[in-house]
């Protein structure tokens, strides 16, 4: 997935010289996860550069560049470190088009690795997407595979609104299904690991139906798409698994069509449960599919605790817990 993301930025920098890439360690070094490797060499230090360690400064200068007419793509080294930039994100990036009635805009993309599974402890494992989904004016995107990652990142960069682009870091090197004790599979063995070279897009706000099924709908995104698929396969439930890809604006039609059909719904995310994006999904499903629902909607999520370093696999909502959730939804 690292190469796919790199390729998306490469393609966009080549096509559009208003695209600039910056962040901590992203210039000469190419990023701590190597996603911007080679871009400075290819496009020069004034299009791909290192920044001071100041997430708010990164976002603020990106907004200013957006106002000028550039299209900045910035990296926040870990999603856990995006909080210092909250004010710039909420109070300015998200609100600029509205407050200037369209005269000033911030067409920025904020890439940031999220999620656990690499023993990062509480400050390298968070999934803060719910916060962004509450902020009108922001779009929030999370890919689950290299093919989508590239197509969605290109769409995000081309989008004229600010996009938070969360990259599940545990997926950087393979389609992790939650079985942490099994050997790591690389993306090369996965169909979505094949990524075309040039420009292509996956539209924002379109979910992907990754497994059709009849009995229960699973709404999920990011790493948990693979975990859900594993749980479904192992549990023998005929679940319809939907990878939301974009959380806001969410693809409501795909959700409603599926739940109306199956009558049951399991929501799976890695973030903490209370006021997580699963809450919004649950509310939407019950508002739109109330009369089709045959059982309570089930949320399978990270616990409402910080991500504990040594106990990370007890925290992570792995296939066993998702399977339990499926069972619960089937039993009602």
């Amino acid at each position, binding site marked *: 997935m690292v190469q796919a993301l790199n390729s998306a930025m490469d393609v966009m920098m080549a096509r559009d010289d208003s695209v600039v890439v910056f962040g901590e360690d992203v210039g000469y070094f190419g990023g701590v996860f190597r996603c911007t490797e080679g871009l400075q060499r290819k496009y020069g230090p004034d299009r791909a550069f290192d920044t001071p360690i100041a997430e708010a400064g990164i976002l603020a*200068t990106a907004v200013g560049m957006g106002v000028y007419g550039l299209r900045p793509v910035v990296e926040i080294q870990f999603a856990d470190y995006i909080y210092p930039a909250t004010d710039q994100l909420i109070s300015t990036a998200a609100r600029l088009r509205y407050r200037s009635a369209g005269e000033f805009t911030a067409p920025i993309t904020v890439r940031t690795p999220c999620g656990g599974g690499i023993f990062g402890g509480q400050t390298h494992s968070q999934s803060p997407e719910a916060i962004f989904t509450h902020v*009108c004016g922001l779009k929030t995107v999370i890919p689950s595979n290299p093919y989508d990652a590239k197509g969605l990142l290109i769409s995000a960069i081309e989008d004229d*609104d600010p996009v938070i682009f969360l990259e599940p870091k545990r997926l950087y090197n393979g389609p992790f299904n939650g079985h942490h004790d099994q050997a790591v599979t690389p993306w090369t063995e996965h169909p979505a690991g094949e990524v075309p070279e040039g420009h292509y897009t996956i539209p924002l706000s379109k979910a992907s139906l990754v497994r059709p099924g009849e009995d229960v709908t699973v709404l999920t995104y990011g790493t948990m798409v693979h975990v859900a698929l594993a749980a479904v396969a192992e549990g023998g439930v005929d679940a319809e698994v939907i990878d939301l890809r974009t959380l*806001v604006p969410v693809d409501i039609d795909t959700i409603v069509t599926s739940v109306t059909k199956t009558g049951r719904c399991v929501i799976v995310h890695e973030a903490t449960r209370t006021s997580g994006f699963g809450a919004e999904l649950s509310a939407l499903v019950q508002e739109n599919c109330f009369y089709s629902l045959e059982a309570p909607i089930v949320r399978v999520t990270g616990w409402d605790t910080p991500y504990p370093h040594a106990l990370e696999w007890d925290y992570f909502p792995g296939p066993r817990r998702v399977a339990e959730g499926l069972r619960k939804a089937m039993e009602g």
Partner: protein
Amino acid sequence: MKNSVSLQLHVPEPAARPGQAPDFNWVKVPAAGSVTRPDISVEPGAIREHAYTLIRVLDDSGDAVGPWNPKLDLQTLQRGLRAMMLTRAYDNRMFRAQRQGKTSFYMPCTGEEAIGVAQAMALDHRDMTFPTYRQQGLLIARGWPLVDMMNQVFSNSRDRLKGRQMPIMYSSKAAGFFSIAGNLATHFPQAVGWAMASAIRHDDRIAAGWIGEGATAEGDFHHALTFASVYRAPVILNIVNNQYAISSFQGIAGGERTTFAARGLGYGLPSLRVDGNDFLAVHAVTTWAADRARSNLGSTVIELLSYRAAAHSTSDDPSKYRPADEASHWPLGDPIARLKQHLMALEVWSDEQHSRLAVEVDNEVRDAQREAESYGTMGTDEHHSPATMFDDVYKEMPWHLRRQRQELGF
């Protein structure tokens, strides 16, 4: 290893509180003309003292003296005087309009007019400005129509911001005037980002940002100076020290132990402290900083020393926290009176001319207000349709906002 002094928290206190006599003895005012004017290519380290002194051009008798005299022609001086007076007349009428219920809120810049006006005039009109809510003088000096500003203040049917923003939160791309931020300081590093973009595109336009001395305490101030220093961004970083942040005096912002200009030294940026009520001095230092920026020499920090002569806003009552007559004791005087004095010293201006101009600008404001009010005021119902509330959240309206608009009945 340690002594046994018991520790004490120091909480800064201003020199005078309500009921006490105003005290500005602590303001050191060097003679006009006494500060050197280095070449723009000077090493910042060589002019650190410029952050601790006060660049002044107009002396007590209204003569322009010393190396910072910008030697402006008469027409420019008169344009400046007119723009400052227009700004003051505008403030006065809008403040009254709030008291009359025509707008919910207003913020004047009384006493600080030289800053917006002289700086607008020293910049190129293509340069981008990132002001605070107290630089209406910038817009006025750039000739932006008062009616358009008032439409915003009245949130009326011609308000280009569609009634979305609080009064005085102007925004004009055409005037190179960035949308005013409610969240203090956020725009300051954005100005740096804009300037970086201009440099990335090998443009020749520079940026300028303004911030109040109170808001310098925000992290975004630090981000602005750090990024400006690291990338040598072509941006002028102005700190308007008007002594107050709502009720708290500049000591609470960190002004007790050093100047605000000194902040810039920590980043290796040249930092100038200027008499903010001296139109000529403000013009001169802004020109110097603009020339540096345009010559790829990077950013300059300017502290503009002034005094907030009026209330913070229409919601504020300064008599609660400072001596009522403090403004009249401010040692740097009033910017309009001082420029008037200068023109009179040059024998090109008279009291009559001045009075005539005062009437003229007031009439101009009155006429503009009449027109703006014809498009509605806060009290009336002439504003944009509630349906517009859902526009511009995103470029294209997503399904959930369309549904919500329907829920509202549109």
